[in-house]
């Protein structure tokens, strides 16, 4: 992050926003004038904007008096200084002689950063009852700042992350945000007061909506007030968002290390949504906080005082997610014992994270697969079900599609290579496709795949494993990708491939893929749910139920998901497949199903580098 340059641009934008605020206030004055003159028209002889009647003058005076009074009370609040404000929000001052080691460490951090930022050390307050991660600075007009930090921040962040959060708050101090913020607060207080006076007048004049003069006056005043509050909030929010980026840039300047700030933000992103700040004064504080809860609706976005976390992380360190993941990968590679092969027959031992062993065929299989026709047969044999009624149906379908002899050949091969087909399916497919790729022309290979697909549909719907295997064969045969007939439009809610969706909105797709990979990793349903929830958090804020491969229509939906994810940037796809690989490896080995799924994901998302 180029923090000096970044600070310069942000500062310019902030000046523009402050000008906007001034212009908005002038605009407000004009609006008040025009409305009042129009409303008092019945009492005067005509419309005269330059010389309003006495009533109009009184009216305008009331409004501005209300505004000034509101400002005055806010000024008193702010005058009292940071420490008083901090105490009012429930902060307890942290002192060096506390018995908690963390408190001592926090004070150390604060004094370190105050040196880095060349600011005087503020008083430090702790919110003991807050479990969320948050921090803010309150202060008067000159100095007297107080830094308030929630207990959650101290518990959940490590020393470096905490330093980064503290440095962000010091960024606000060093950039002179505190007086500006306080002034914005005062101006908003004044505008709010107009609204309050209007409310008061309406209530005093009796609740009924009769055309009493008091109600009319109150209504007009409220109208003016709410217009003011609306514009005031709008500008405050935009202003505050810019200052957040500026403070982030300063934080990086002070610590000279963007990674902890980015990771602190990602910790906040991953915490539970209900852990927002609970103080009664929360609404007043939003534009001061380190980060507020994520909001989704558009009008919330307009009023949000903070930029979305992901945008902040991207601005600080665009490759944060990828870096963390690759770091984790390196750390894992250094403990090779984790991947000792299990003893089960279906376990494929792996080493070094991605390369697979034991692809050798037995002699018997090598001899049997000597010619093209047996290779062709074995590709059919791969799909023979263990269920005898289903396999009978399958054999007869083959006999119908080709002839009886071929059907027998498939059956013979199936019996001869029974164990190999179960344990070493990949090697067999590899061998068969290699031979066919050289000896059969492309259109015939396409035709072969088509007929295989039709044969599989005889058994009913695709099972997930059949689909994965079919896609693998398709890839190995260099045949064209998605051939599945256009069924995706039948299932509602499935994304169309042509729409490039933004990252946040793909929770559904990620959820589907993650639940499949989690499910294939073992038999414990409870563990599945836990793993799934953890993994999904990395990709989306939304909640999605875990899916199972037994659901009908899962394959079509999967196909649609692939199409959606396929158009995403390569980095995202690779990170996702890597993540799946990590999930599959979590229990120390990669089972056959897991491996088939991983292959499918990697191939479908075009991440061949990671695919085995």
């Amino acid at each position: 992050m180029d923090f000096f340059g970044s600070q310069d641009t942000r500062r310019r934008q902030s000046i523009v926003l402050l000008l906007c605020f001034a212009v908005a206030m002038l605009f407000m004055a004009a609006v008040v004038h025009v409305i009042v003159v129009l409303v008092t028209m019945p009492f005067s002889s005509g419309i005269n904007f330059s010389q309003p009647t006495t009533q109009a003058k009184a009216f305008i005076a009331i409004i501005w008096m209300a505004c000034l009074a509101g400002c005055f009370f806010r000024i008193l609040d702010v005058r009292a200084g940071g420490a008083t404000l901090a105490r009012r929000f429930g902060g307890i001052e942290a002192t060096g002689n506390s018995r908690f080691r963390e408190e001592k460490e926090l004070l150390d951090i604060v004094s370190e950063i105050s040196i880095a930022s060349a600011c005087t050390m503020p008083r430090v307050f702790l919110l003991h009852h807050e479990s969320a991660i948050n921090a803010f600075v309150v202060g008067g007009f000159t100095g007297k700042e107080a830094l308030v930090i929630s207990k959650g921040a101290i518990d959940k962040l490590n020393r470096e992350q905490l330093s980064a959060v503290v440095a962000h708050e010091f960024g606000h101090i060093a950039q002179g945000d505190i007086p500006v913020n306080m002034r914005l607060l005062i101006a908003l207080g004044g505008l709010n007061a107009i609204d309050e006076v209007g409310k008061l007048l309406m209530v005093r004049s009796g609740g009924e909506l009769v055309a009493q003069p008091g109600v009319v006056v109150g209504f007009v005043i409220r109208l003016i007030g709410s217009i003011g509050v609306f514009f005031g909030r709008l500008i405050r929010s935009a202003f505050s968002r810019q200052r957040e980026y500026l403070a982030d840039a300063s934080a990086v300047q002070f610590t000279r290390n963007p990674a902890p700030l980015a990771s602190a933000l990602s910790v906040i992103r991953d915490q539970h949504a209900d852990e927002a700040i609970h103080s009664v004064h929360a609404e007043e504080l939003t534009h001061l906080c380190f980060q507020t809860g994520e909001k989704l609706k558009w009008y919330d976005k307009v009023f949000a005082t903070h930029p979305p976390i992901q945008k902040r992380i991207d601005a600080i360190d665009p490759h944060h997610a990828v870096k963390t993941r690759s770091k984790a990968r390196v750390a894992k590679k250094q403990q090779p014992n984790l991947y000792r092969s299990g003893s089960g027959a279906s376990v494929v031992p792996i080493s070094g994270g991605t390369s697979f062993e034991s692809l050798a065929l037995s002699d018997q299989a090598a001899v049997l697969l000597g010619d093209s026709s047996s290779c062709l047969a074995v590709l059919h044999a791969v799909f023979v079900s263990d269920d005898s009624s289903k396999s009978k149906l399958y054999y007869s379908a083959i006999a119908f599609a080709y002839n009886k002899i071929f059907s027998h050949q498939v059956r013979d091969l199936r019996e001869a290579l029974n164990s190999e087909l179960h344990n070493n399916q990949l090697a067999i497919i590899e061998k068969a496709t290699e031979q066919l790729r050289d000896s059969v022309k492309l259109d015939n290979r396409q035709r072969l795949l088509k007929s295989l697909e039709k044969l599989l549909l005889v058994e009913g719907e695709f099972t997930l494993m059949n689909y994965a295997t079919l896609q693998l064969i398709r890839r190995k045969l260099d045949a064209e990708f998605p051939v599945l007939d256009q069924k995706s439009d039948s299932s509602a809610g499935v994304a169309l491939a042509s729409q490039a969706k933004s990252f946040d909105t793909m929770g559904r797709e990620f959820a589907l893929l993650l639940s499949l990979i989690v499910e294939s990793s073992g038999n414990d349903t409870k563990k599945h749910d836990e793993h799934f929830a953890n993994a999904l958090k990395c990709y989306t804020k939304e909640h999605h139920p875990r899916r199972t491969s037994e659901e009908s229509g899962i394959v079509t939906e999967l196909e649609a998901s692939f199409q959606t994810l396929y158009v995403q940037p390569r980095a995202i796809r690779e990170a996702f497949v890597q993540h799946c690989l990590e999930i599959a490896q979590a229990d120390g080995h990669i089972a056959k199903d897991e491996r088939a799924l991983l292959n499918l994901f990697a191939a479908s998302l075009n991440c061949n580098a990671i695919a085995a």
Partner: protein
Amino acid sequence: MGVGTIVLIVAVLLAAYFVMIYNRLITHKNRFMNAFSQIDVQLQRRYELIPNLVEIANKYVTHEKETLTAVIDARNTASKACKAASANPQESGLVGALAQAEQTLGNAMGKFNMVMEDYPELKADESLRDLHDELTSTENRVTYARQAYSDAVMRYNTDREQFPAVVVANSCNFREADLFEAANEDVHKPVKVAFG
């Protein structure tokens, strides 16, 4: 309005501009001097902590006593250099000498920490651990202070070298400030590690 009046007005404006630039330079200069005094304060704190640390270690360490004396020697040299530099931070060369002494002290402390690893009972000592924590924090502070100093020097130097200011700076003897860096080229060479 005569020509004389116009000349007078222009002269007054120029003088005001000159004073403005001069004051700005003074502000920047004081900022970086202040930043330097911060380094100074933190370094002094560190020099106070080190003898205490060595004293406690002395109770446990039986061999490699020379590491301890090396630390103390380096500390004394650095302490002297720090005093000389803080007396006159604008004198170039003094800051460089201090940076070099700091480098030596840093190396000695590195060796000391390695020796500490050999004595588990030393590491378990409660008061030593507190001291060590404090020393770590102080070292962080030194780093941050140096960083703040570099930032302040950069602002000052940039301001000093820009066009209208450079005229004022040269005529009023605003010299270019040193960054906190070792003057000797040796420290920029990669450190050799030998396993004996």
